[in-house]
């Protein structure tokens, strides 16, 4: 994008942009800035400003949007660190990540490999089936699964009939299962899109690599282990990153499925923030902002870690060639 500075706005002959400096360039490029104006204004107000403002809000005791907050320094953070419910939600988000993300990434890869094979019949139909929940509203899926996972619902009934369960279980209303029920529904909903990512990744592998492996007598297992997998590592990092951020943004599904309950057993960080800021009768906007700041830092940390991982993976696969 930056390799060839095709400055089309410049009339021929005026290519020497040595002197005259910044002001003249700004004046000449005025229309460029006009083109950028909607994005700069919108992005500034709705993304960059919130990013900065959250830090300020986190230092306030602020009971509602109508009021002015009072500055209390880092007191919110001190309270947050001592708040068992915050750490509870923090732990749930981590458990959710560890349980659901590998399942989603792994199962999707498995499906994509099967659906990428020439011999697999009805690929289009199967792809559509797996993709259907992706286009469905998360809130609807949450509401629908409160019924499906109910003690009298079809999933519990089927498990009892097949002998896998002794008595009906309401997965959503049980403190031991609610978080994992949420994770399972989340994997179910988003598997299709991760599968499409993987299919796109698989299609970047040239066909002759596959043929060469066949000629060398490699079976499907060895071919996957030594050829496909190393080529997929950079994609693995980026797909895991996308899915991880998705897992942290699980609000709509979790909120409509369990609302964080029962007894906070499935409350993840986003629900904690929502409950503190908007769900309580006395809003604690400063306190919720402090939680949001910590949440943002965690996300950033994960993103940076994976970006480093991606660079490492690129170098490793680059070194192999």
């Amino acid at each position, binding site marked *: *994008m*930056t390799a060839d500075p095709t400055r089309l*706005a410049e009339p021929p002959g005026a290519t020497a942009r040595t002197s005259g400096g910044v002001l003249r*360039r*700004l004046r000449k490029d005025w229309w*460029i800035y006009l*083109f*950028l104006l909607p*994005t*700069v204004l*919108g*992005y500034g*107000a*709705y*993304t960059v400003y*919130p*990013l900065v403002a*959250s830090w300020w*809000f986190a230092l306030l005791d602020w009971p509602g*949007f109508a009021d002015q907050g009072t500055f209390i320094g880092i007191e919110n953070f001190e309270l947050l660190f001592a708040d068992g419910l915050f750490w509870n939600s923090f732990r749930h988000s981590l458990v959710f990540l560890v349980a659901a993300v590998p399942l989603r990434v792994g199962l999707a890869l498995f499906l994509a490999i099967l*659906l990428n*094979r020439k011999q*697999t*019949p009805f690929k289009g139909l*199967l792809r559509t089936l797996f*993709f*259907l*929940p992706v*286009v*469905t*509203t998360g*809130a609807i*899926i949450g*509401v*629908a*699964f409160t*019924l499906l996972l109910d003690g009298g619902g079809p999933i519990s009934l*089927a498990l009892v009939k097949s002998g896998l369960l002794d008595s009906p279980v309401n997965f959503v209303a049980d403190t031991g299962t609610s978080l994992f029920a949420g994770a399972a529904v989340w994997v*179910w909903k988003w598997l299709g899109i991760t599968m*499409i*990512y993987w*299919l*796109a990744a698989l*299609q970047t592998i040239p066909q002759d690599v596959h043929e060469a492996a066949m000629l060398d007598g490699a079976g499907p297992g060895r071919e996957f282990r030594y050829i496909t997998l190393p080529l997929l590592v950079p994609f693995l990092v*980026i797909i895991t990153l996308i899915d991880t*951020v998705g897992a*942290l943004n699980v*609000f*709509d599904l979790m909120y*409509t499925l369990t609302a964080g309950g029962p007894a906070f057993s499935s409350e993840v*960080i*986003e629900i904690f*923030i*929502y409950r503190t800021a*908007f769900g309580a009768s006395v809003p604690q906007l400063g306190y919720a*902002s402090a939680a*949001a*700041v910590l*949440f*943002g830092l965690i996300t950033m940390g994960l993103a940076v870690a994976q970006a480093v991982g991606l660079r490492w993976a690129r170098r490793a696969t680059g070194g192999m060639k």
Partner: protein
Amino acid sequence: MRRAVAGGLARAQGWRRVFARPGNTMTFLGLLLLGVMWIYPFIWLLSASLKTQPEIFGSGLGLLPDQPIWENYARAWTTVGFDRYFLNTVIITGGTVLLIVVRSALAGYVLGRYKFIGKKVLIVVFVVTFFLPEGYTIIPVVQLTDQLGLLNTYLGVILGLGAGGQVAATLLYAGYFSGLPKELEESARIDGAGPFRIFAQVMLPLSWPITATVVILNFLFAWNTYLLPLVFTLSEPAMRTLAVGMTAFVGEYSTDWSGLAAAAMISLVPVMAVFIALQRKFVDSIAGAVKQ
């Protein structure tokens, strides 16, 4: 005609060859079983929307309703206010998609084709904020909207959904525009067209494939989004979207599950229709966005 028959025959023989290998058949059956797990909740929801309240839980695993109760749909549509929620969703989705297309196309065009002071800063800001979770920004976004007096308005929700974020759309446009030959613009400039005419009459029409992708992806995003419309309409139930109205339904009519299922179907139909009509385009555009 003969060719069609021959094609059908070849396909039939092809299938026979595929299923002749037991491995292929096993794979297919396994995938089909998994596929049933993916479609079952939708069929169950459809069936629940046509059942009576006691029948939903009383009929066990049976999917066929004794007698389809179409009144469930009428009830969800009028009594609970889903007609209004539907209208709200259409307006908000349309406005959001339009805003995103216009501003991303404009920004993507200059980012993709020109060098200017501040470009690097812009790109760095985009990259840093790319993965920002919605829960992080929601409080300042509400505060800002409140100060602008836009809470509980369509414009407020549309700005909240379409003005920030959506870096991907801008980058898709930038990537596409940077690949177009520059002769296109040069000849237009010789004809005396200024940058605005070149953009509107030459570049924008050329970017149709990307516009389609951006429209599809953001239609999905705006139609299904939940947290922001929920928070923006807490004090004004009439402004709810379908997704938000669904939850309110649970609260106010906590026993009316058949009406709820019908409401869910009403909300699903437009998305499903768009998805099935544009299926190839959907999948291709997501795959393309990933490869970028």
